[in-house]
């Protein structure tokens, strides 16, 4: 705490800067700013704004990958087609299922791990290694590792299931369980980021708060229930929203582990879009689907921005 620092008499810089000899005109003053902004802005326009506009425009045309140009104007028919297609509906449904399966464990386990790790002074590096290292590894490595673990009959999971007296299951080959397998691999892979965010949040809680609670006779459980959980409310909001956004964008794990199968059982929004765009060559329809997903994600991201700003203003 630095609030008690006595104010030393210091030589302060003059409050107002000395008047300039010649004041540059507005244009002269502003030109360097635009020059500094230009390189980034050009890339921003080329690869964020440009594709977004192209996506919106192409969603209104019968654009195809095999022909150049936009093709014929289609109005809203691409949207009508996409929203009416059972495979798009089920892909969106699977995306939501994946989000529902991964968000609670990724938030709750990360919270528990962080609270427990925060009480242990020594060996923090070990817990960071165990929980966080997978997060920086490529999804392709993760997928190879987990497909092997889930391998029917010979995989590690079946061996462990045998030890525990359970019936071995072919997780990724079973339409009812494939998404659970992908979810498990994802929880393992990405919990590290939430763990680290919660640890950072815990470090911001002044130790005095807990000391005071301990003096008042609060048990560790009471401290967690009445102090830690409410004090980490902001972090939880952040983690949940980040998690939902990340889950809606799931592509890698599905593409690598099941390619959307078995059948269509794990087809998600982005694998649907890639399939329609790159395999069926129907850019217009893929763009319409992209716009739908884009809008959903932007709405949640905007809610997150708004909430963060609101909480910052209140804090």
């Amino acid at each position: 705490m630095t609030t008690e620092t006595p104010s030393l008499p210091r030589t302060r810089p003059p409050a107002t800067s000395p008047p300039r000899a010649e004041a540059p005109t507005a244009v002269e003053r502003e030109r360097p700013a635009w020059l500094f902004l230009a390189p980034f802005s050009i890339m921003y326009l080329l690869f964020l704004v440009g594709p977004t506009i192209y996506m919106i425009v192409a969603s209104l045309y019968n654009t195809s990958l095999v022909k150049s140009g936009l093709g014929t104007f289609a109005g809203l028919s691409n949207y009508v087609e996409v929203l009416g297609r059972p495979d798009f509906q089920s892909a969106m449904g699977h995306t939501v299922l994946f989000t529902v399966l991964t968000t609670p464990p990724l938030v709750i386990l990360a919270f528990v791990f962080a609270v427990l790790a925060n009480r242990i002074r020594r060996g923090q590096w070990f817990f960071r290694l165990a929980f966080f290292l997978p997060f920086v590894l490529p999804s392709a490595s993760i997928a190879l590792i987990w497909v092997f673990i889930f391998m029917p009959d010979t995989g590690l999971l079946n061996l462990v299931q045998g030890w525990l007296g359970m019936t071995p299951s072919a997780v990724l080959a079973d339409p009812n369980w494939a998404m659970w397998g992908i979810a498990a691999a994802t929880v393992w892979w990405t919990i590290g980021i939430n763990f680290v965010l919660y640890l950072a949040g815990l470090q911001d809680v002044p130790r005095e708060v807990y000391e005071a609670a301990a003096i008042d006779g609060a048990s560790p459980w009471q401290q967690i229930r009445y102090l830690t959980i409410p004090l980490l409310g902001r972090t939880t909001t952040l983690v949940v929203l980040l998690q939902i956004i990340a889950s809606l964008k799931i592509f890698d794990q599905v593409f690598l582990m099941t390619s959307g199968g078995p059948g269509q059982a794990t087809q998600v929004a982005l694998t649907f879009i890639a399939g329609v765009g790159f395999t069926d060559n129907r850019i217009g329809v893929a763009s319409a689907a992209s716009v739908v997903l884009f809008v959903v994600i932007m709405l949640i991201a905007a809610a997150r921005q708004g909430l963060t700003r609101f909480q910052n203003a209140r804090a």
Partner: protein
Amino acid sequence: MASTTIQKTPGISAAAPPPARSGSGGGRVQQDSRSFTIISRVLLIFFALLWLVPTLWAIRTSLVSNATASLGASAVLTDTSPTLHSYSVLLQSGDIWNWYMSSAITSVATVALTVLFASMAGFALSRMVFRGRKVVFILMIIGIMVPTQVLVVPIFRELSAMHLLNTYWSVILPQVPAVIAVFIFKQFFDGLPKEYEESARIDGAGFWRIYWSIILPLSRPVLSAVSILTFVTVWNNLILPLFTLSNPKLMTIPVGLATVQGSYGQRLADIQASAILGALPLIIIYFFFQRRIIEGVAGVGVKG
């Protein structure tokens, strides 16, 4: 929000001071507290070991023969003759070297361009007064929210029109406008004292000199944080190179690994060895820069 989130969070890794135990806590509570600490330690160690299993299992499998690996998990577990055969096969075949090369070139080039362009933009937003500053700021905030993965089809079309498909540029350029980097730089620059540049300006230094010889040298921590985070992100990106690079010689590690499952078939030990080799550069980076990486992601997440 403190002026720089990056600097605000080093507490994560710096060992926190030991809890000052007050003797007046009362016997029962202290008893509670002690057993709670033991339980939490046991639980946490259990989960941490559980979390290590998949990686250790992949390493274990990569060290047996393909024949043993195809017999199943118990054969792998009880194998007593470890071999580096899979690694030597992979390292001699040459594919993995191509993938390493592509990943290294695209990652390093993206890092260089992102760090330069984003720090310049961050400098302008932090230090310069100009009309439209607010608009630029709002556009940047919107830019943070844009899910670039969803733009993969239009980005592909655009790269195709620019005749950049199957070049490294198709992986590099779309990843340069990482808006979050601009914010990280701006926040860091906002926290730097202005005294140095004021005296430099009196000496007649222009904005470029101030940016290049005063601000950047003071910004080593944030430069390395953004560099490492960008490197990891670009190295691990699957969806963009997957569709823009079809030439096997140009494939990055993730795209190359994505072909392994199909092309290696039953060579299960080789497959696990390739997963480990693909992850290896990042494991090394993690061990060298773990503090920066963790502070970086925590800072980005908090600000985001």
